[in-house]
């Protein structure tokens, strides 16, 4: 490799994110172009989807599923109240479509049996998936009564292609109140939640009710 195709030490430091003074203009242009190309490449990469989660859980908990086929079938054919109401809410700077909280399909678990906490003395939990479409947000977190309303408590993960932010949270059966927090400062209720309650300060909190067999109302 010839020297002209190497980045200078200053350009390397610049690409490392350090502040560099006196970087030659041609080197600066080359470094910027390099950074831009790599950034575009990184953004173009697809990431494996939720089918990985299902395959992994199928592989590690097949026994739990096969032990309760009758109750699983019974649960599947029984009517359950799962309210999911996708809604489109346009805000000034951000478009949000909250799909709300959904129970997720976990083999050996979605038949509503409580988790192993029944044998360990720990409270049983139901895994609840929260989804919010916020393509323009840089960060979305979930704060609620289940985490002392900490905005740093639950980080949602963004699907770059769809703009959908998701997180799966273990919740104990009962009623929980929650809000989404956009970019650390904008607290919003879940537009598709079944119920909103006054938080006592003139704002609304979303309500989710978790039963031992899954989400009762979202």
């Amino acid at each position, binding site marked *: *490799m010839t020297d002209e*195709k*190497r*980045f200078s030490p200053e350009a*390397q430091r610049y*690409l*490392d994110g350090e502040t560099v003074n006196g970087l030659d203009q041609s080197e600066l242009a*080359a470094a910027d*172009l*390099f950074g831009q*190309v*790599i*950034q*575009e*490449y*990184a953004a*173009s*990469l*697809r*990431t*494996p*989807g*939720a*089918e*990985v*989660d299902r*395959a*992994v*859980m199928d*592989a*590690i*908990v097949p026994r*739990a599923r096969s032990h309760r086929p009758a109750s699983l079938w019974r649960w599947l054919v029984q009517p359950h109240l799962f309210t999911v109401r996708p809604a489109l809410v346009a805000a000034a700077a951000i478009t949000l479509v909250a799909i709300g909280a959904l129970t*997720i399909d*976990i083999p*050996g678990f979605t038949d509503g049996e409580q*988790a*192993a*906490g029944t*044998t*360990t003395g*720990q409270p049983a*939990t139901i*895994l609840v998936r929260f989804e919010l479409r916020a393509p323009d947000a840089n960060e979305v977190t979930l704060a*609620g009564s*289940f*985490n*002392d309303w*900490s905005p740093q*408590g*639950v*980080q949602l*993960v963004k699907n770059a292609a769809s703009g959908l932010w*998701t*997180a*799966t*949270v*273990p*919740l*104990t059966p009962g009623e929980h109140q929650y809000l989404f927090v956009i970019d650390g400062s904008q607290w919003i209720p879940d537009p598709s939640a079944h119920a909103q309650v006054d938080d006592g300060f003139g704002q609304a909190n979303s309500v989710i009710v978790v039963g031992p067999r899954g989400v009762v109302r979202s």
Partner: protein
Amino acid sequence: MGSQSDAVLVRRILDGQVELFQVLVERYRTEFGRYATAMLGGDVDDAADALQEAFIRAYRSLASCRDQERFKAWLFRIVSNQCHNTRRARRSHVSLDRIEEPEDSAAARRMDDAEIGQTIEAALNELTGEQREAFVLKHVEGYSYAEIASLLDVGEDALKMRVHRARDELRHKSEGLR
């Protein structure tokens, strides 16, 4: 309750709440997904297979994760090894594309996105495993050197050396881009 730490989740899983492994899978499938795809030549199907195998192996050896506070680094090593194994297996029956020297670098032409992706992937394939891993973590995942050092248990100076060499190689191999 809220977002439980890795260590708490690992302890509860080992205590019998197997279904909580789903939380860890979703958390790190997303976090390490782009890394796996980049390490496997942009093939998202290979990345999905590698991640699936890595998570299953991690679950089966979860009891051996003694420092549960460093679960992320422990899991990353499994994901990384699986990606390297997949690459080796693929090399045995697939001839990886090679980048040709541009005949006239002065006549640089504008490539479309697909060509850029193929060029970068082919150039990444030319790097050593260590260089490729460090470069992908730095520039694709966007980790800081301190975070990479924690994941790989390698000093920051050594990491910078790998990333700098990787940049030079990539610049050399991808002359003519744009």
